[in-house]
C-alpha cells in the first residue's frame, strides 16, 4: 500500500521527467519585445479615446483641483460636459500620432532615427502604423478589428503577410481598460484637473491626470484643447516617472484619411504564406 508520501514522490518524479526536455523557445524575448511595443502603441489610443468616450457617456463629475499657480481652471463638470460634446462628434474621427525613435531601437540606429506614424480610428476598430527611416517607409502594419486581420508590409525585403489580428492577441479585453473601470476611476475622483495646461500649437489647454487609468494600471494624463475639448497631447507614467508627452492630431473621416488606416500593398511584393505572429 502506497503512503501519500510515496505517491507524492512518484508524482514529482513523473512530472519532472515529463517536462525535463522542455526549453524556452529561442524567439521568446524577441517576440515579447515586438508584442510589447505593439501593445504600447495600441494602448495609447485605447486609453485616450475610450476613456473620454466613456466619460462623455456617463457624464460623471471629476474632482476640481485648482492649479498650484492659482490660475483659473474651468469648472470640472463643465469640462466633462464639453469633452462629452466633443467626443460625441469625434467617434468616427482618426487620430494621428507621430513619434521619433532614436539610438538603438527597433528600427533606429545611432545617428539614423526612425519615425513612427500611427493612425487610429477613434472607436479603436482600426489602426495603422508606419515606420520610416530616411523618410522612406521600411515597415508598415494595419489592424482591422472588423475583419479581425493584421496586414504587415516589410519594404526591406518587399514582402507582405496577412493573418489573424495581432494587436490584442485575440483577447482585446485582456489588458484594455473597460468602460466600467474608467467609470469607476472617474467616479472615485482619481481623474482630476491638474492645472491650466501649456499651449499646444499656440492654443490653450487644460491638463488632466489620473491614477491607474492607463492599461497596466499606470497613471496617465492628457491635455484637452480649451476650445475644441479634444485631447491634443497625452502622457504616461512608468516606473514612477512621466514619459515625454506626445501630440495627437484629430482628422475628419474623409475618404483620404480613412484610407490611411489600411496599408497599401505595393505591386510586385511577395506574400509570405504565414501571417505575422
Amino acid at each position, binding site marked *: 500500500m502506497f503512503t501519500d508520501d510515496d505517491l507524492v514522490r512518484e508524482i514529482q518524479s513523473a512530472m519532472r521527467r*515529463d517536462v525535463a526536455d*522542455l*526549453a*524556452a523557445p529561442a524567439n521568446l*524575448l524577441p517576440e515579447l519585445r515586438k508584442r*510589447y511595443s505593439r501593445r504600447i502603441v495600441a494602448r495609447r489610443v485605447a486609453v485616450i479615446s475610450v476613456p473620454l468616450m466613456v466619460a462623455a457617456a456617463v457624464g460623471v463629475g471629476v474632482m476640481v483641483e485648482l492649479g498650484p499657480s492659482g490660475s483659473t481652471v474651468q469648472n470640472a463638470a463643465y469640462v466633462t460636459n464639453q469633452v462629452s460634446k466633443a467626443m460625441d462628434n469625434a467617434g468616427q474621427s482618426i487620430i494621428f500620432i507621430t513619434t521619433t525613435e532614436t539610438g538603438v531601437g527597433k528600427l533606429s540606429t545611432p545617428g539614423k532615427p526612425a519615425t513612427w506614424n500611427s493612425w487610429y480610428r477613434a472607436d479603436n476598430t482600426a489602426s495603422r502604423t508606419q515606420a520610416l527611416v530616411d523618410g522612406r517607409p521600411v515597415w508598415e502594419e494595419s489592424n482591422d478589428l472588423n475583419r479581425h486581420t493584421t496586414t504587415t508590409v516589410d519594404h526591406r525585403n518587399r514582402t507582405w503577410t496577412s493573418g489573424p489580428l495581432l494587436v490584442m492577441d485575440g483577447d482585446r479585453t485582456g489588458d484594455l481598460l473597460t468602460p466600467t473601470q474608467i467609470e469607476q476611476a472617474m467616479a472615485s475622483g482619481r481623474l482630476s484637473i491638474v492645472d491650466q495646461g501649456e499651449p499646444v500649437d499656440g492654443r490653450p489647454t487644460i491638463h488632466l491626470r489620473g491614477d491607474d487609468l492607463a*492599461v497596466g494600471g499606470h497613471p496617465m494624463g492628457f491635455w484637452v484643447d480649451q476650445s475644441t475639448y479634444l485631447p491634443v497631447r497625452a502622457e504616461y507614467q512608468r516606473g514612477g516617472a512621466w514619459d515625454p508627452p506626445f501630440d495627437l492630431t484629430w482628422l475628419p473621416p474623409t475618404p483620404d484619411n480613412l484610407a490611411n488606416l489600411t496599408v497599401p500593398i505595393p505591386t510586385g511584393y511577395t506574400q509570405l504564406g504565414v501571417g505575422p505572429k
Partner: protein
Amino acid sequence: MQLDPAFEEFVAGRSVALLRTASLLVGDRGDAEDLLQTALLRTALKWRRARDHPEAYARQVLVNLARDRWRRSRRRVAEQSLNPTLADPAQADHSNAVVNQLAIQHALAVLPQRLREVIVLRFFDDLSVADTALAMRTSEGTVKSQTSRALRQLRQILGNHQTDDNAEANRVH
C-alpha cells in the same frame, strides 16, 4: 517602448521553469508556449506592480490563463485527453510497475483543473501552501483540502488502472 532590462533578465532566468509549469497545467506543449508568452507579456505590461515578485505574478497569470483555456475547451476535454500524445495507460505495459510515468501523466490529465493546479504548484513547483493559495487566488484551507482531494483522486485513478491491468493479465493467463 522597450522592455525593462530587469524584466528581460527575469525572462532569461525563469522562463524555462514557468514553461514547464505551464506545460503541466495544460498538458500540451504548444499551448504552454502560448500561455507563457501571454503571461510574460502581461507581466511586462504591469511590471511596475510585478517587479518585486515577478515569478509569483507571472505564475498567477499562468494559472488564470490555464483556467480560461480549460473553460473554453472543457467540452472537448470531456471527449478527449488534454494531451493527444498520451496513450491510454491501460494499453501500456504495467507488468513491472505499480505506478508508472504514463499512468501518472494520464491521471493528472483527467484530474479536474483546480486539483491539477494544486498538484503542479505544490509538488512540481514546490510552493508552500501560502504561495500556492496566492497563485490560485484562494485560501490556504482550500489548498490543503484540495491537495488531499487531489491525492485521493489520483490514488483512485491509478488504482483503477492497476485493477484494469490485473484483470487484463488474468484474462491473458
